[in-house]
């Protein structure tokens, strides 16, 4: 048993902002899950990317691409039976090698997560205020101070009338307010990295953009780093400065958001961009991606995307492409990235 004070002490010694390099560097992350009949399924296969300071990184992929699993691995809460390897360097410290108490100390206080479905993610039997104030309360702050913090956090998350709403139960709030409460929960430990896993997917369309704007605003004013996990290219393109595109557990492409979405260096990214209907221009219907997405359980040999790729040739079927720098700041895992990029 760990002494009760340990976690708190860890939480207070936040890494100094003077550390060089990105706060989070993911280096060859591998996540294996137990599959049927004792097999292991590699759901994340050698993923590497950085989350720089005070920057939003969008992590894009279809379901089964391993994007959520990557976020859960960073938080240190992968599904039961998962094994992690590679390195998750948090201010230079490898979190995969860290012991459970250290992992807990980072969780919530340095790295926090916003979940997809706020109704499921909030405790139905506890008032919002109690859930938002849990970390300050466990820090033994005086009650008045805890409730002042709760009001402040709810207000920061854009919950109107926070003094009244902190008394409400989750089911008494609208979906948008619930997600705002969830954001307040995530901010309560004063994290420096926010993981947002499809934060708007469960919400009404009209509420989605407001929540996105709130997240972008909080990220900017608090100087947070944010990893925004989404299947929705438009969501990511609105807020992220950098993007990482994943397919079947591997990174296809990463780079500055504008460049990647304007001039993809991987056929999968290009196909994704084409599949998004352009709302304003009223041009032809979007081009859906041909074929079904590969799943980690039966990942094609070579480049996992080759069965759906218009450029696929013999080399793609036999050789797994490495992620390499194909233009300044642009990384792609396509053997023929230059061809995709064009002149």
């Amino acid at each position, binding site marked *: 048993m760990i002494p009760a004070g340990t976690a708190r002490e860890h939480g207070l010694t936040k890494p100094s902002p003077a550390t060089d390099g990105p706060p989070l560097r993911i280096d060859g992350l591998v996540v294996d899950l137990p599959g049927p009949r004792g097999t292991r399924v590699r759901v994340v296969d050698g993923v590497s990317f950085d989350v720089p300071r005070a920057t939003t990184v969008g992590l894009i992929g279809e379901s089964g691409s391993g994007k959520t699993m990557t976020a859960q691995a960073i*938080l240190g809460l992968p599904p039961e039976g998962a094994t992690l390897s590679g390195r998750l360097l948090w201010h230079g410290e490898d979190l995969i090698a860290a012991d459970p108490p250290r992992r807990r100390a980072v969780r919530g206080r340095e790295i926090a*997560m916003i979940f997809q479905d706020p109704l*499921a993610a909030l405790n*139905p039997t506890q008032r919002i205020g109690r859930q938002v104030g849990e970390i300050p309360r466990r820090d033994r702050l005086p009650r008045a101070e805890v409730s002042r913090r709760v009001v402040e956090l709810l207000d920061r998350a854009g919950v109107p009338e926070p003094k009244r709403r902190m008394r409400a139960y989750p089911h008494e709030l609208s979906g948008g307010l619930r997600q705002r409460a969830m954001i307040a*929960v995530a901010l309560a430990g004063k994290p420096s990295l926010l993981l947002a896993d499809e934060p708007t997917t469960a919400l009404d369309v009209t509420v989605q953009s407001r929540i996105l704007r709130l997240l972008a605003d909080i990220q900017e004013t608090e100087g947070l780093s944010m990893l925004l996990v989404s299947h929705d290219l438009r969501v990511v393109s609105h807020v992220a400065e950098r993007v990482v595109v994943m397919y079947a557990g591997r990174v296809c492409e990463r780079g500055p958001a504008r460049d990647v979405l304007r001039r993809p260096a991987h056929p999968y990214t290009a196909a994704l961009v084409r599949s998004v209907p352009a709302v304003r221009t009223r041009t032809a219907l979007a081009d859906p991606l041909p074929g079904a997405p590969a799943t980690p359980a039966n990942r094609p040999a070579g480049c996992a995307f080759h069965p759906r790729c218009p450029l696929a040739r013999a080399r793609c079927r036999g050789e797994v492409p490495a992620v390499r720098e194909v233009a300044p700041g642009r990384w792609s895992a396509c053997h023929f990235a230059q061809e995709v990029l064009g002149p």
Partner: protein
Amino acid sequence: MIRMIVQRLLIGVFVMWGAASLIFLIVRAAPGDPATVLLGPDADRGRIDELRATLGLDRSLGAQYLSYLGDVSRLDFGESHRLGRPAMDAVLDRLPATIDLTLTATAIAVIVGLTLGLLAGGRPGGPLDRVVSACTIALQSFPTFWIGIMLVLVFALGLRLLPSSGVGTPQHLVLPAVTLSFPFIAIIARLTRTSIAETMREGYVRTARSKGLTERQVLVGHALRNSLIPVVTVVGVQVGALVGGAVIVENVFAWPGLGSLVVDAVANRDYAVVQGVTLLIAGIVVVLNLMADLLIAQLDPRIRTGAV
């Protein structure tokens, strides 16, 4: 909330009516009637008919039923012809002993059952879970009377720690209460285990973990209350069944409660006492279920505010 209570009470009245009617039919369906039992097999026909008329048993079943319902609705539960006193008086005399026994057994079962369920459910599939599962299956499989006799053999006759039967001191309560609690412990432990294990997979438990809480803080602070909701429902229903189970245990330990009274009454076709005991137990079950519902509303704000 008030609507719910009124609704449950109305349902309760229906349940009582159903119980009253069923037991009325069952006692009369049993072969033999009070007159033949009282006067013995050799009594002559005329005297039996005379007694039947005094007891009102010569009337049609329908007429008996209607006057019975009328009496019961005025809280008149009839005379025990055997004991020569109002049936409910005899029943209420025995009630405290049964309440002592069932409440003690319930307390033991809730404390031990919840603890075992928590230990097992905190880590499903772990070594503790396996041990607890094996124990609960054993507890549930052995019949109550056998457990009672084994406990008497070990603790009363073997170790001479506790009295084997009768009443008087708190020590007298131990063996019957423990015996009665065993199957109930198993039910509560298994249910708590399943409920906790399920709750620990909920989204809000993941949120609690994402706050950097220890597993114990997550369990106590977030999972426990929510996983108790199904347990409370079942405990409410099962305490009623426990009163029924008490009948057997009371006979094993010569405990002077409702159990021994009702066995005696059934053997002697003492209709009024059998009906009185049944109605009392039915009433207790109705009240306990209402209390369980109120407690659940207290545990789950969604029910309190009528959202579910």
